[in-house]
């Protein structure tokens, strides 16, 4: 369990992190979201022991990050932002070094390094200096460094930054596989990633937590949560829009696309309990329109993200 208590960081006059508290348990994948300079990296740097907090503290597996820093660091695997690695070392030499620092020696060390190389698809480049690697490989080298000791706690600052879609997919499925018996905190700008890997999301803006929810809960905050997106074939599609908007229980109808003879609309119910799908089907049936397709939307994270982080006053308090 990682427990963060009133963690605060000041850089001169600037308050970068302002009294953040939360707990993450085993099996959870916590996603940190927030605009740039919101304090995500600073919070991670404090938990991993790189930056000393101005006030407050955190504990990792029961070890205080200030008082028992070495014990806490032993249990953490950390992937810093921009994935730093020693440029003049070869991949194997670099991982050997990390393994030695992590207390592995001899056969066990070699086995660990070999296993990690395989896991992170680095076997082809094992004898290449880190400086000659592409960004994706570099990211994976640093990722390998973070998981070489099979840590209980994994903290990753933008783990899929700079990867191509295939590599992103691989890294995400690795994170998901590891999530079962680990506690993971990751930060990201990629909202799709949150949906795929995170079990819980904390949104940080200006150093404060403005939302702490599951991805699904977050989506229900979206204006489009429960909205129906549907395509109707009708001889006179123009009239449908105004007619639909007049229906009871429909807050708003937005035109998404219009082709000849068919129109795609999005109907937003005034309340999530409104059976909007049924209403639309009946509406089309009554008028003899063909309903081509319909989808009930879960809501979009990017809308929620914008809504929460843009306003000066936090829109949602948990």
């Amino acid at each position: 369990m990682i427990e963060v208590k009133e963690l605060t960081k000041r850089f001169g006059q600037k308050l970068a992190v302002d009294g953040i508290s939360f707990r993450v348990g085993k099996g959870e994948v916590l996603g940190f979201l927030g605009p740039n300079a919101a304090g995500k990296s600073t919070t991670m740097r404090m938990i991993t022991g790189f930056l000393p907090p101005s006030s407050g503290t955190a504990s990792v597996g029961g070890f205080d990050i200030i008082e028992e820093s070495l014990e806490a660091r032993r249990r953490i695997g950390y992937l810093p932002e921009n994935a730093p690695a020693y440029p003049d070392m070869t991949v194997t030499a670099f991982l050997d070094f990390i393994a030695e620092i992590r207390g592995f020696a001899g056969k066990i060390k070699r086995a660990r390094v070999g296993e990690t190389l395989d896991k992170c698809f680095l076997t082809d480049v094992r004898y290449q200096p880190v400086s000659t690697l592409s960004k994706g490989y570099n990211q994976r080298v640093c990722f390998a460094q973070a998981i070489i000791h099979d840590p209980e706690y994994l903290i990753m600052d933008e783990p899929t930054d700079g990867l191509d879609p295939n590599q992103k997919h691989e890294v995400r499925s690795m994170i998901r596989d590891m999530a079962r018996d680990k506690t993971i905190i990751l930060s990201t700008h990629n909202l799709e990633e949150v949906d795929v890997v995170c079990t819980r999301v904390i949104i940080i803006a200006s150093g404060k937590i403005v939302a702490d929810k599951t991805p699904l809960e977050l989506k229900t905050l979206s204006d489009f949560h429960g909205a129906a997106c549907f395509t109707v074939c009708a001889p006179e599609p123009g009239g449908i829009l105004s007619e639909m908007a007049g229906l009871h229980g429909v807050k708003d109808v937005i035109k998404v696309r219009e082709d000849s003879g068919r129109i795609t609309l999005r109907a937003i119910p005034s309340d999530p309990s409104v059976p909007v799908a049924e209403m639309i089907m009946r509406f089309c049936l009554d008028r003899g329109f063909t309903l081509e397709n319909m989808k009930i939307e879960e809501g979009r994270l990017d809308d929620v993200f914008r809504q929460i982080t843009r306003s000066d006053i936090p829109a949602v308090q948990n």
Partner: protein
Amino acid sequence: MKRMWAVMKRELAGYFTSPVAYVFIVIFLLLCGFFTFSIGRFYEIGQADLRAFFEWHPWIFLFLVPSVGMRLWADERRDGTIELILTLPVSLSELIVGKFLAAWIFLGSALALTFPIIITVGYLGEPDFGAILTGYIGSLLLAGSYLSVGCMTSSLTRSQVISFVLTVVICLFLLLAGWPPVTDFLSGWAPAWLISVVEGFSFMHHFADMERGVLDIRDLIYYLSVMGFMLLANGVILQSRRSS
């Protein structure tokens, strides 16, 4: 201890995988030869000792040792690996000492490669090998002291150049403090104790004994305390720069 060993091994390998090490060693040996034979007039003096050789070490080291120390922390900062190394389960003192020892061992190996001069002097006459050994110990301690200054300045900046210049200036200052023109300048007006304090801070003052073959415990303590102080300062700087 094991972790310090790992840090040291990595750092030492870092010297030898880059061309820096070889350039350094070649230039060091060339300069040693040039100063000893051409300027120190080793042959003309006609004495079977290595004073003409050791005499120049404070000046050769002044420009070469900072180039060995400058990368130790500045590079970590530039490459961002400082965030990696400081979040690994290794203590700050293990890191500092590990890095310092690696660079010192490297300097020691460069110094060891001057061995042909011992053979030369042994062939030409009957030198006092004890004095030569003392000279080498003094030289190694001097290099270590310069290096500790280099470690300290390296932790101040992400630029190797700034670290280099700062180290040269600090070491030059410590060298010249005991130089006769400087002490003469002071002797006109300063009280005697102040002169001896200033002189006591000088590398030159402490090197001179060892160069002659005298191993004085006070000189040893001086060098070890310079290294201890600089490495401690290195730790304090790293700690304080981390929090800002």
